[in-house]
């Protein structure tokens, strides 16, 4: 399984990332997930989220999750980009690409990756009003 984890301060460039897809005629399913900053937090209107990461540990924890993904499902590749710093409402803070031979495993792996990230990867956010 190819893997590529990035934690960046710049805007996520979906088009450039997609152009970098290592497409293969063995991979019948490709999934992209974008986590977008919403303009509300409960009852409050927000302008942005300020993301902070303990970057070295975040990379390691992502790697541990991907080790599990690799053991559980036949996945071709996973690429993930998480932004840090200020991310405006309406902008993506998370971009994930999963390629796999079949869709069931692609969906399962993509959801597992995000669910686990939200439990263990040391990234935090604060609302900016």
């Amino acid at each position, binding site marked *: 399984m190819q893997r590529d984890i990035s934690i960046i301060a710049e805007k996520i460039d979906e088009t450039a990332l997609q152009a970098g897809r290592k497409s293969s005629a063995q991979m019948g399913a490709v999934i992209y997930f974008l986590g977008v900053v919403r303009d509300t937090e409960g009852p409050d209107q927000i302008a942005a989220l300020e*993301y*902070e990461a*303990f970057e070295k540990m975040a990379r390691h924890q992502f790697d541990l999750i991907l080790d599990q993904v690799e053991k559980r499902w036949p996945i071709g590749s996973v690429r993930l980009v998480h932004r840090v710093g200020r991310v405006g409402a309406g902008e993506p*803070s*998370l971009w994930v690409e999963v390629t796999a031979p079949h869709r069931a495993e692609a969906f399962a792996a993509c959801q597992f990756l995000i669910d686990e990230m939200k439990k263990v990867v040391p990234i935090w956010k604060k609302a900016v009003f």
Partner: protein
Amino acid sequence: MSVRVHFYSYCRDLAGCAETIESISTGESLAVLLQKLFLRFPKMAAMQRSLLVAVGVDYQTGDYILRDGDEVALFPPVQGG
């Protein structure tokens, strides 16, 4: 020996600093270190049930025996994505 402790996110706000040094005896556990920190930073004691603790880049529980050079990190529940 002394251990460097890093605070992230809300923990940094509660501690009022990004890191500190704490002295402990050889063979002491992470739980002992945390008790010492909570005495110095009482506001953090209030959130100890939800606090996450790592040594280096791995999560550890209170029974972990600290070694010279260990870097400890304390932070609230993660919220990536």
